[in-house]
């Protein structure tokens, strides 16, 4: 084949590859909304969003409880994970000796790679009995989910906050040091405020990860359909609800439609988190 022809064909081929990601995204939105909207319409939008009944027998589906469950898990996780990971990020960006960094970085990379079902299993066999014996309740609880998800989201927030700390121009800190500030004063009063938009954006992106995590959450949260009154109560999130039922629901049934509608609610949350995170991150530049 003449090489100019090959050149022309390949140009088209790589363009098609690039377009694939766009088509996949469109297809995902179309197919989730097609079945999900059916779920909204069958139940009524208000009744679905705020309904507190999820009953296959009566064919009534409402996600009020799950929305609340998802929000509590996300907030609970971020309250623990954010301070811990920002502390680690400052450490890695500013004060870690190189040899310590060489150990910590790969370790954090490894945390990302461990399958979520392994975290879930760990939660089931170690954390759940621990909570049951020391704090009371059945063990399977909001608290268990929060602890497991905290560990899972740490690497995301650490890496992104570290990036934003590193992107603060060097001379900011150097000027502070030249004025006689201690290392810590320079970090606390100059570096952190300068990196704040990036760090906040990292935290919100982390919230998106938490609300979207499904398997580990399902394995430890108990998946009980009830408003939790304390962190020791079992609960149910949008994701754990889908995980628990997607295999048994028949495709095309109103049950499956309701699960897809859960997916829409989840996508809306993700969309809000990602847009906020994106605009925050942009202000930094």
């Amino acid at each position, binding site marked *: 084949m003449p090489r100019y022809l090959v050149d022309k064909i390949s140009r088209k081929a790589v363009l098609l590859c690039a377009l694939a990601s766009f088509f996949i*995204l469109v297809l995902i939105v179309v197919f989730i909304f097609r079945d999900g909207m059916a779920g909204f319409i069958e139940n009524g939008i208000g009744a679905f969003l705020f309904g507190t009944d999820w009953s296959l027998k009566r064919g009534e589906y409402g996600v009020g409880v799950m929305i609340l469950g998802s929000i509590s898990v996300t907030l609970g996780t971020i309250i623990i994970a954010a301070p811990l990971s920002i502390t*680690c990020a400052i450490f890695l960006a500013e004060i*870690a000796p190189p040899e310590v960094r060489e150990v910590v970085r790969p370790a954090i990379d490894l945390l990302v790679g461990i399958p979520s079902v392994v975290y879930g299993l760990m939660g089931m066999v170690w954390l759940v009995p621990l909570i049951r014996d020391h704090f009371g309740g059945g063990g399977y609880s909001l608290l268990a989910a929060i602890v497991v998800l905290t560990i899972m989201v740490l690497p995301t927030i650490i890496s992104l906050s570290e990036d934003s700390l590193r992107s603060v121009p060097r001379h900011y800190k150097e000027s502070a040091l030249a004025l006689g500030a201690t290392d810590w004063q320079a970090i606390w009063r100059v570096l952190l405020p300068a990196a704040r938009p990036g760090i906040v954006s990292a935290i919100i992106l982390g919230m998106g990860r938490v609300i979207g995590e499904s398997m580990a959450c399902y394995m430890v949260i108990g998946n009980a359909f009830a408003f939790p009154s304390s962190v020791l109560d079992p609960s149910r999130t949008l*994701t754990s609800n889908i995980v628990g039922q997607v295999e048994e629901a028949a495709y095309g049934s109103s049950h499956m439609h309701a699960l897809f509608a859960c997916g829409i609610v989840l996508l809306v949350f993700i969309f809000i988190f990602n847009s906020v995170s994106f605009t925050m991150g942009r202000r930094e530049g």
Partner: protein
Amino acid sequence: MNISPRVTQRIAFGVMWGAVAIVLLLLLFIIGYILWRGFSSLSFDFVFGPTTEGGLRAPLVGTVYIVALTLLIVVPLGVGTAVWLSEYAPIKGRFAPFIRYTLDGLAGIPSIIFGLFGAAFFVYMMIGEQCILAGALTLACLSLPFMVGAAEEAIRSVPKSQKEAALALGATRWQVTWRVVLPAALPGIITGAILCTGTAIAETAPLLATSGFSAFTPHSPLDGCRTLALHLFYLATEAPCTGGVTHEDLVDKAMGVGVILILVIVILNLLMRFLSGRYIARMRGGK
């Protein structure tokens, strides 16, 4: 009471060392605990025995199938996208940033949504049944942004002078890409492929309603299968169905699967570090 800045600094640094120590200890504890509890349940019969008798043969074969098919789809697609983004895309214009946004968008979508999408599109619309192919297609969609990211970074770090030298010798754009850029970017592309392998091994939510949960050893991409991670999930969460098997037995087995998964992930991570290390060395040394 005023605390001097020096003391404040001491305290703050102490807290930071503590936080990092907590994270490291957590990692060590998780890995150590799984290895400690799971190693005892590993045996030749368990790992290679038929799954209908409690072994891991079906999930092992299933994992290999899923990973191979996923890579077969995602590597060409991802490298193609990366080539377009870094070599062909018009420098000015909104199209390339737009494709980047869609990739970022894809990367942000929760894996369970990919599972629902795969069930609706690949399983019910295109193939008609839950099978390995549907699972692999779903995983390919999910891991596409990671593949593109790794490949593009590798392609962009190929020195411009190398490309220009080839162009000056009369090579077409594609000849430059195929013979100069891609070979130089190969370690980065392999790193991306390893990243996708790790994703395909670790992810379970996208496979719940797409790959089927057959406990039989698959023979073709149109058979149902379960991966190791999915098998772990079923072992840990499903009530024992046959007499004499307790939930504890199943959890012990799940721990055994956890050991295998962790070992594989550790090996993949080491491989990636080795590759990127060599890659950096080669870029620095020019050879």
